[in-house]
């Protein structure tokens, strides 16, 4: 009777059950993890989809995904998601004078009223899919 040898992966390079141990085994820390690299605070981080062209100068295009960290405090120059007229809006925060600035000269600034504005979170990363069809099916 022939016993089939199955290959098993346990967080490392393939180890063949009936074979020799891989020489890489002791030197392998696991694959690169995009989650760890891109998300510092998972419980406070949300992914949003961008709609519109006002942020192209900051490398944020229509249809991109942005990572928004709600645990960060926004300061001058932060790219933020703010609530403007009951809508989520992505803009650059400017403090002097207080306003939300687009990263595209064709769009006007939004002044921040005296009683302030609600900042939903701070944008940390942009995911921009490239290539024909935008890289992945949406």
């Amino acid at each position: 009777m022939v016993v089939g040898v199955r290959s098993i992966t346990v967080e490392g390079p393939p180890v063949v059950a009936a074979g020799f141990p891989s020489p890489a085994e002791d030197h392998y820390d696991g694959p690169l993890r995009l989650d760890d690299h891109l998300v510092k605070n998972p419980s406070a981080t949300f992914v949003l989809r961008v709609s519109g062209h006002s942020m192209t100068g900051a490398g944020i295009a229509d249809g991109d995904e942005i990572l928004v960290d709600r645990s960060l405090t926004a300061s001058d120059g932060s790219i933020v998601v703010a609530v403007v007229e009951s809508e989520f809006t992505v803009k650059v925060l400017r403090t002097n004078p207080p306003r939300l600035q687009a990263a595209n000269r064709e769009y006007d600034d939004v002044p921040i009223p005296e009683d302030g504005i609600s900042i939903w979170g701070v944008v940390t990363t942009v995911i921009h899919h490239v290539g024909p069809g935008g890289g992945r099916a949406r």
Partner: protein
Amino acid sequence: MRDELFAIVDVDSMYASVEQVFDPRIRGRPVCVLSNNDGCVVTMTAEAKALGVERGQPWFQLRNHPRRAEIVFLSSNYGLYGDMSARMLAILQSVTPRWEAYSIDEAFLRIPAEGATATAVRIRERIGGWLGLPVKVGVAPSKTLAKVAAKRAKQRTERVDNLAEVEPRRVQAILDEFPVADVWGIGPRLTARLAAHEVGSAGQLARLDPGWVRRNYTVVVERTVRELRGISCIPLECSPPPRRQMVHCRALGKPVTDEHEVVDTASTFAQRIAAKLRRHHRAAGLVQVWLSSGGSYYSGAPIDVHGSQALLEPTNAARPLALAAARLARRLYQPGYQYRRIGIILPDLVAEHQVTGMWTTAKNRTIDEALTAAIDSVTSRYGKAAIGLGRAGVRTRAEWEMKQQVRSPAYTTRWDELLVAHAR
């Protein structure tokens, strides 16, 4: 001075609050979230309460509410609430590893007595800031008193209450004003029995002799008495015991009469429960199917049947469980009834790693493993309804599925339903 205290963290009208985090248009408005079948109100905001909406009120009554147009009604979006709940627990974990998830919107914590109020404020600020969810925090020497403190926190502007900081005589006065029906673990039946013994407040309950309570009631009520006296008897349950049984039972959105539909439904439910088994690393060796028609005055006597089938060996693969459920449903089905509830019950679960595999042929096992892996990888990306065996794979909603007519998007769990940030 005690070294450690209990804290309970409780999200204010959780489901409605979550919806408001993701939709600024409904902030500050009366919001009601409806149950599974859009049947009745399960959560509402204070604004909705002010309009006279009550928890448990059926939707058909509210349709004619005089201020209906002002109220926002939403179907429940459990995927979203579950994700926010998991985030909340992760935040609590960053404060202390000693927490217990009590329900989707409540958790108990063990925190040092020193600076407990400041810790509670910090927790509140962190969950409020990071998740946008309003919480109240009750702190006390026992779980039962912490629940009392949480009720008090609700009335206070800072939304935090620490009973350990209140002097004992004042605590007595607080408990004397606290209705016994609102005490954690005291249900309507116990409330009625206690009323017969002229116990109407938490304070009165706390003054009863624990031995007498144990003899005349139960050990559980005796524990409540001691807990109200500030002696902790109910410890933190940090890891929930492994699941011994699992049930997937739903009221169907529309009654089903056709045999094929009954069988398809049972098969689909079995596949859902199989996925849940795999998430919990459990396996089932026995499948029960339950069909019920819930008859009415006009439709005659109801039918309520169930049957079970033992599997050759425990499994959590979709195919064998779906096959067993479908076979049982076919056997139980009787024509001429309107089926309104169908359930799958797995009464006796074992750990996944305890399955020996000696009764399954290698070929079948390979098929089941490959099929299960394929299903899991598709559903994790495209959602539960994207693929399945038989009718479960039909993308259009089967007629019996939840109505969920006004469900918000799965903002945090589906790439194709992300929250939109406008750049204009």
